[in-house]
């Protein structure tokens, strides 16, 4: 499978309709594993990394889940292509920086990706739309068990799976979800939520911005510790916290609708106006405005069919995606023009925001108790 076919289709997890997908964009579970008696990738010399790669890659490609997979050495991918994969959240920024001795194997649906020789010898991750941590876990668990019958993983009875960084030792599992929380941000409640969550030993970070500045009102929440808990305990804890945050987000939106509706109409109106008419737009501004439009779709100000084009724009307006879609090398200014152009094009089919339709949110969300993915 070629890179171009990956680029041309959005991954299933992005356009899928998992539970609570309005607020939980995606769920991901990642396992870190290493081979016994081999230096970790950060310490191993190139020759050893290549040997490890040659040992691991065929076993991954042979997995039934990886039929017709995308399998490439990172040194064969251009910097731009790697950056595109990062923007799609298919590889980590660290992996994109790697060259010789590292590889990526990914399934066609883009729900399963295996990074070879990133920080650890093997980083397997599964992504799902919405809140589906358990499902994502099941898939990684399955291929982990399949691979361990062919490869001997470094494991200590007391410390668990041994990883390059001690922060991953034990289960080697990082479970995370990407949340869209414009209600909490607009209500200025987000800091409280972040602090409360941090106290429980979970990590929350803004997805793109610097420090606490969140771009696009997107936040990633994940477990911080990997040792001393069972995998399913970590996932239940994370799922419960996310469900609480979902409720809080819905509540915040309700309050905004009832008490600060003018602020809401104003935000949505301005976002719509700027996106429809601007001729230059930086990616940070684009993400923030798109986030408001997405909120507008959630609240009914825009028809539901407009949801997917907005979700796609979140990805397509990223810098590497823009560059990939253009024949010439673009500088920052040209990218901003192209971004605005693409946005105007997609928003041409958008009706004006229907403020009258901004019904109370009780139809979707807090009234219906979040279904447990047990």
């Amino acid at each position, binding site marked *: 499978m070629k890179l171009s076919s990956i680029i041309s289709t959005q991954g299933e997890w992005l356009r899928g309709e998992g539970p609570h997908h309005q607020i939980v964009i995606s769920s991901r579970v990642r396992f870190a594993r290493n081979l016994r008696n081999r230096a*970790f990738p950060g310490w191993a010399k190139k020759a050893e990394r290549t040997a490890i790669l040659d040992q691991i890659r065929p076993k991954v490609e042979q997995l039934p889940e990886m039929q017709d997979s995308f399998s490439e050495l990172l040194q064969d991918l251009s910097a731009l292509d790697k950056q595109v994969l990062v923007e799609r959240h298919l590889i*980590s920024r660290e992996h994109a920086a790697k060259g010789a001795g590292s590889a990526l194997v990914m399934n066609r649906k883009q729900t399963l990706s295996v990074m070879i020789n990133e920080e650890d010898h093997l980083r397997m991750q599964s992504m799902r739309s919405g809140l589906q941590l358990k499902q994502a876990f099941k898939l990684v668990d399955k291929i982990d*068990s399949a691979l361990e019958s062919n490869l001997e993983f470094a494991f200590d009875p007391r*410390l668990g799976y*041994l990883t390059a960084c001690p922060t991953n030792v*034990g289960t080697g599992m990082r479970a995370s979800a990407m949340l869209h929380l414009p209600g909490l941000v607009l209500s200025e409640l987000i800091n409280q939520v972040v602090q409360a969550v941090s106290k429980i030993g979970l990590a929350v970070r803004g997805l793109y911005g610097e420090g606490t500045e969140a771009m696009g009102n997107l936040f990633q929440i994940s477990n911080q*510790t990997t*040792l001393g808990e069972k995998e399913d305990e970590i996932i239940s804890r994370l799922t419960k916290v996310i469900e609480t945050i979902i409720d809080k987000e819905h509540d915040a939106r309700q309050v905004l609708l009832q008490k600060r509706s003018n602020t809401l109409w104003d935000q949505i109106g301005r976002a719509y106006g700027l996106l429809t008419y601007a001729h230059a737009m930086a990616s940070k501004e684009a993400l923030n405005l798109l986030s408001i439009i997405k909120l507008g779709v959630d609240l009914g100000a825009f028809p539901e069919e407009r949801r997917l084009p907005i979700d796609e724009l979140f990805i397509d307006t990223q810098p590497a995606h823009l560059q990939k879609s253009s024949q010439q090398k673009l500088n920052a200014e040209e990218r901003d023009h192209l971004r605005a152009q693409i946005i105007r094009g997609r928003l041409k089919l958008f009706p004006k925001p229907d403020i009258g339709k901004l019904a109370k949110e009780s139809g979707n969300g807090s009234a219906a108790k979040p279904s447990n993915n047990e």
Partner: protein
Amino acid sequence: MLCDVCKCNDAAVFLTQIVEGKMQKVNLCDACSKEKGVQDPTGFALADLLLGIGAAEEIEKGGAAQKCPVCGFTQSDFKKTGRLGCSTCYLTFAEGLGSLLKAMHKGTEHVGKVPEHAQRAAQLTDRMRNLSESLQKAVADENYETAASLRDQIKQLENDLTS
């Protein structure tokens, strides 16, 4: 105040982490903060950075000039990168790592998934633990015959484990 990483430039970036009431601070100079990816929130893990600095100090306590026999990794390497060299490093630097893992994680013992090749060993270890608890109880109850038979079972398991 000097940078904690390179110890030569003045610190310009001050990071504080508070987890469950425990506070840890790191002071970085401009160059080191860029190198550690502090500007990049997705790539930067404060925990890793603190680990690298705190861990290196802990490991120094464990024993001077230790070098991993398998991969040649040393504690100064750990200090620089915050990561280990190979799985044997966990044994080599076990003393220093112990307290670090305790601070870092919810527990110090793994209770999750066990790979197949280790499952047999894990089951045997569990059984041994149960037997030795029973042995202690038998001795306390002055049940010496039971104690003797338990002691023999434990010996047998030990042989099984090392075989």
